[in-house]
């Protein structure tokens, strides 16, 4: 079970190049696609979810359990959809329909033709996403989190082998987020789950592999733990006052600044001790992300830092 993306490019009619030669290999399990807003994550997700056309490149879903073994994601859309679970970044509902009814409708669309089986699956999923008690209520009255969970239920219908979830945790409260991520990770045991997010923690907590994307380009493809380990000894922190910031940014490879109790904490990427006042810091995935975005690691050309 593996999804191979090779050289996928996409340019919108207004000239924006959303994806530039994106190549990724996504094995079974949770895969995080990390990037800022507007990086091209959603475009890639929609292309993989058969909802958008790529200008060039290919995407292949290899699955020994499938009859044809290999599915051309970009061309064999009907085949992909049979094994696809997709949770779009934004979606609405029919306000005057109950969750149960709409989920049943979706189950049929997903190919569960037998009414009893459909009902069984729908109720089980509603349990699973914790909407069982409110299953008979109109979707118009659902909160954002409830709608999101309903969307998850729709995506989970039919035991998808390829699960694409686009920024799923954006509207969830902390408890919901935890439960949602648990749900996903369970699923990741025997399918490809591609999760796009701009929240680093989502990836660090769940994903076995990840990629960082910005301006349509894959900057880094790695295992989160390995990437963090690779950074060990190269991240330094220093607490400074605000006026010092400009000078430090000029002289060092600052990857992030944070306010901490009124003081400014800068983190700097450096192979050796960057200078006085800096102390070594234990790297985390956020440092991987920022180091990649600032070009210290990964495929982005390194920034010219003044010596």
């Amino acid at each position, binding site marked *: 079970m593996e999804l191979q993306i090779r050289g996928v490019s996409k340019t919108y009619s207004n000239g924006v190049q959303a994806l530039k030669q994106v190549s990724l290999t996504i094995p079974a399990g949770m895969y995080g696609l990390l990037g800022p807003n507007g990086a091209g994550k959603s475009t890639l997700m929609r292309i993989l*979810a058969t909802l958008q056309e790529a200008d060039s490149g290919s995407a292949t879903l290899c699955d020994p359990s499938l009859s044809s073994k290999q599915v051309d994601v970009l061309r064999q859309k009907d085949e992909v959809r049979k094994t696809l679970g997709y949770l779009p970044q934004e979606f609405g509902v029919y306000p005057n329909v109950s969750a149960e009814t709409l989920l049943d409708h979706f189950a049929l669309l997903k190919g569960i*033709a037998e009414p009893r089986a459909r009902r069984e699956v729908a109720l089980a999923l509603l349990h699973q996403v914790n909407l069982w008690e409110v299953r008979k209520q109109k*979707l118009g*009255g659902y*909160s954002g989190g409830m709608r999101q969970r309903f969307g998850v239920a729709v995506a989970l219908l039919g035991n998808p082998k390829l699960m694409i979830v686009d920024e799923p945790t954006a509207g969830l409260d902390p408890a919901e987020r935890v439960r949602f991520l648990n749900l996903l990770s369970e699923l990741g045991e025997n399918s490809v789950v591609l999760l796009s997010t701009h929240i680093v923690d989502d990836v660090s907590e769940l994903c076995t592999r990840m990629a960082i994307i910005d301006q349509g380009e894959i900057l880094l493809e790695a295992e989160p733990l390995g990437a963090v380990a690779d950074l060990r000894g190269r991240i330094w922190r220093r607490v400074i006052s605000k006026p010092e910031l400009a000078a430090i940014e000029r002289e060092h490879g600052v990857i992030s600044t944070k306010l901490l109790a009124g003081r400014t904490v800068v983190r700097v990427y450096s192979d050796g001790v960057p200078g006085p006042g800096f102390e070594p810091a234990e790297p985390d995935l956020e440092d991987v992300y920022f180091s990649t975005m600032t070009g210290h690691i990964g495929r982005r050309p390194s920034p010219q830092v003044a010596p």
Partner: protein
Amino acid sequence: MKLWGIFRFELAYQMRRPWPWLSTAVLLVFAFVSTRVAIVPVTLPQDFILNSPFIIAAVSVFSCQIWLLIAPAVAGEAAARDVHTGLHPLVYASPVSKTEYLGGRFLAAFILNAWILLAVQVGSLLAAYAPGANPEIIGPFRPTAYLAAYGLIALPNALIATTFQFSAALLSGRPMASYVGSIGLFFLSYPVTFALYLSGLGERGLLADPIGIMAIMNEMMSKWTIVEKNVRMFTLQGPMLLNRLLWLGIACLTLTFIALRFRFAHRTATDPLRWFTRFARAAPARDTAPVRIAISAPHVRRSFGFATHLRQALSIARVSFWLIVKSLPGLFLLVGFPMFLALVLATELQHWGVPLLPRTGFLLSKFMTSPLTQAADYRVVIPLLIVYFTGELVWRERDARLSENTDATPTPEWVFFLGKFLGLVLVLAGYMVSLTAVGMITQALEGYYDFELGQYAQILFGLQLPEYLLFAVLAFLIHAAVNQKYLGLLASLVAYFLIIFASFLGLEHNLLVYGASPEWSFTDMRGFGGSVGPWAWFKLYWAAWALLLAVAARLLWVRGREAGLVTRVRVARLRFTRSTLGIAAMAAGLIVALGGFIFYNTNVLNEYITKDELVQRRADYERLYGKYEDIPQPVRASTKLNIEIHPRRRAATIRGSYRLVNRDVVPIDSVHLEPAFYVDTRVTFDRAFSHVLADDKLGHHIYALAEPLQPGDSLTLDFDVQLEPRGFRNSGSAKSGAGMGVVENGTYFTSGALPVIGYQPLRELWSADDRRRHGLPRQVTLPAPGDVDPSVAAGAAATFEAIVGTDSGQVAVAPGELRRTWSDARSRRYFHYVSDVPINGMDVFFSADYTVHRERWGLPGAERGVDLQVFVHPGHTKLLERVVRSARASLDYYSAQFGPYPYRFLQIVEQPGNFLGMGVDGSGVVTGGEGVFQLDPHGDGFDAIFEIVAHEMGHQWWGMQLKPAFAEGGGVISESLAWYSAMELVKNVKGREALRRFMHFMREPNPWPAIRTGLPLLRAMDPWANYRKGPYAMLALSEYVGEKQVNGALRTLVQQKASSLATTLDMYRELQAATPDSLEPLLHDLFEVNTFWTFDTKKATAMRTALGAWQVTLDVEARKVVADSAGKETELPMNEWIEIGIFAAAEPGEILGKPLYVQKHRIRSGRQTITVMVLQKPARGGIDPYNLLDWEEGDNIERIEVQGSEVESKKR
């Protein structure tokens, strides 16, 4: 100033969208084409001026109707875009006042709409001044005409319609609701207003029209004379002005209401019905959300086969069905519109107050069905709703922002398409069920319990539903292909307009207009009469096209985010699988096969000619053979026919002969003969001849006689005519001439199937425009009566004899006295009809399973009497008695008054067809449509059939004996005198009270509203003058001069003009001779000029005198004006004898009580007081109580106030 900013932003925003521009373009083209092609003025027989204020105003009115349907997006977007896009919390929370926000948005929408409507005037201007217009029909440039049309029609409509579109969108929070508002306005403006107009409210009903279409068109179309239509400037006045003011007022009130009701508040639901379904609104759901151990979903079998796809489609269909049914327009279709229809039935299922029998086939074919290609009545809202529903369905998931979820499911595109289509099918089927319910309820209310459910199913589901479904497929394809909601609606509407206006654009063949077919027909007599076959072939052909469209819709179905054309074409290519190819190939194959078969029938087996070609042929005919118009030709003196009708084979053979006499003074060397079109005719003479010219295309043949026919000599012409259907024609079988007249039951054909002698001037082109285009000399449509040669001989009457054979179960009818009937060995029945008295007009032939009533009528002392026969369908015998009674009474009275009835027979025949009319085709024959025989005068209500038959019987004198010359005033000679005769008959047989009731129905504005301008009676041409004013004038004259004198004058006229054509001048001369000098001025006022008297009784009081009599004092007002044909009215002083009438209280069943006093008084113009004494207690009184001169009912008679008690008390 914020208002200004909001206004500017909105204007700029929408100006950058495509829909305002496309709407503008569509309107411009529509105005241009409708002016040029003259969709509007097509009803004008004479020359019209392309840029007359009338045409400009009429085009503006119709364009407003189109605009209403295509451009609601402007107001909808302005009102509801913020809510729809979810931007409203930002806007509502900003420091803008409600007035600024709504005001700015509304103004922007209004200005934009005003701009769009400007395109109409540009289109009109271009039609007149762009290259290609005929300079002969361009009048002087009158900018005020354009300004008036724009300022008085378009701008008020922009304001009114924008108000309602804006309000609907604002209240519901959905831009699409503006379409609902528009359809609502459209529905009110045309169907509802028209129904109200017909329901007896008359002009008051026109107030209901929000955009003034009916109000304006009624005024201009039917009340303006042709002269006025060419020159009169359009202004708002009378009912038009009232209508505009009323609706502008309503619009302002609505705006105020909306502004007050609107809140900058959070919106929870956008259900348009939420005011009604408040209880069902989605309440916030409580999120329990305890952390729960995940349960894994059970593994179930999934399948992606055809069966699953079908289930998916059905599920989508169900969801789609409920979406529509629960929406306001859906409820309108299933409940509101059928209820409206029930009201229409309640008011229209009658004629002159006599209920019509609600037979199922009649109800269905007259009130509930109509082909897609015709938009002539209120059912036009159904296609409009289909367009709207299709848009809602295609956009459903995207509107709910759920499309990405559904599009990613393993459901093929065709399942979505099929599901939604089936949903719409269910909705339309629901509509058919509603129609069935309406029909049955109407029948039950009328006491008719023979519910023919099979017929409902057959006609509504079998014939009407497919019309709508074909169109729905097209609308789906357009919405799927255009992929922008408003533009999809616009394009679908344009497609619909193209379908209904196809013939104006030169597309006449049903193979070329989507969904078109010949019409089916259903009547009690004929059943479907073979009309369904051709209908079905065409529908199958279009169904094959629909299948192809469905394939295209599937290929272009938008899934996911890609909307670019290139990408969609690429995706479509991916979807073009082998099975798709197979279906497309099958559809294409069917199109070719069915199309080929139809073409073979319509164009190979039969001749197909376009309107243009027909016009061309008529022009050629006149050019080539017009020179023979006045050459001496023999005249038909007798006709002998042997007709064999074979109803089951739908064929007939006619063998016949004419005896032709040379009544001229010179020998005749050749006979010009014109056989009927589309039948086989063979001709021989009883002497040597040669066939020197055979022009089958133009239908003219010349036979040269070896020896010329000397004056006074005669010859015999034998002919053989075969009537036989050959396949079917583009127009189906109903309207395709003599060859198609033979059907299983209800055969009807005329002597039009037989050859005629000589050049036929009636076949010449008469429309001024056609004649000009073909370079033919301008023709005066009708000469003035004084310009006609008074000695022109009337068309020749001929003796007639026919033996008609038909199948054993049927009765055959031909003109004449029935001499003998017999059956032969093959059990065919034969009927021998003879008229020794020469008859004229058209001979008509029937064969059907008739119920026959036969009796002899004769004046005492007459030698043989008249063979009176009435032929009706066996189920239609209810009226038989009344018909016979009227015919007898007419024969009695007319013979005594106007001269003896000359023929030995009188036939009254029910003619197959649902029309509600009677007519006289020839001597001794009166025909009536099946509609007439559905009149159901239960009880002793008004007995319309007596009056109608009396009128047609009148034509046996006025039209058949006294024949009008082809000149102005011809209608007065035939129609006016026939109605006058009926009035006198009613007065004599049934009394004044019955006459009063009869006149009351005559005065209804439908079908002929009063036209005050126009030509005076002696030169009258418009129907109101012929059918209404003429009879009124004759009746007034007979009341003033005396019935005997007037009828005597008419009797003399018949005698004098026995063998030549009559004009109004001949009639006038006789009337003058009968009128005493003192009444000459009245005669002049009635006939020579357009005089209108207006009388009004302001107050009527009575006092009891000492002697016990009553002194009545009337305060009356009188006025007399003369109107010229351009509409100018001049008041004239009057000093004339006018009736004053005082009446006792009315007995039950009477309108007016017993007359206590009716005398003529000298009346001057203006107010005056009249005092008369009566012996009994008066109840009502007034001036001109019988409406002899004031032809508008209403204020002539008032209730008399009795002030007697005071007088009495004083006496004591």
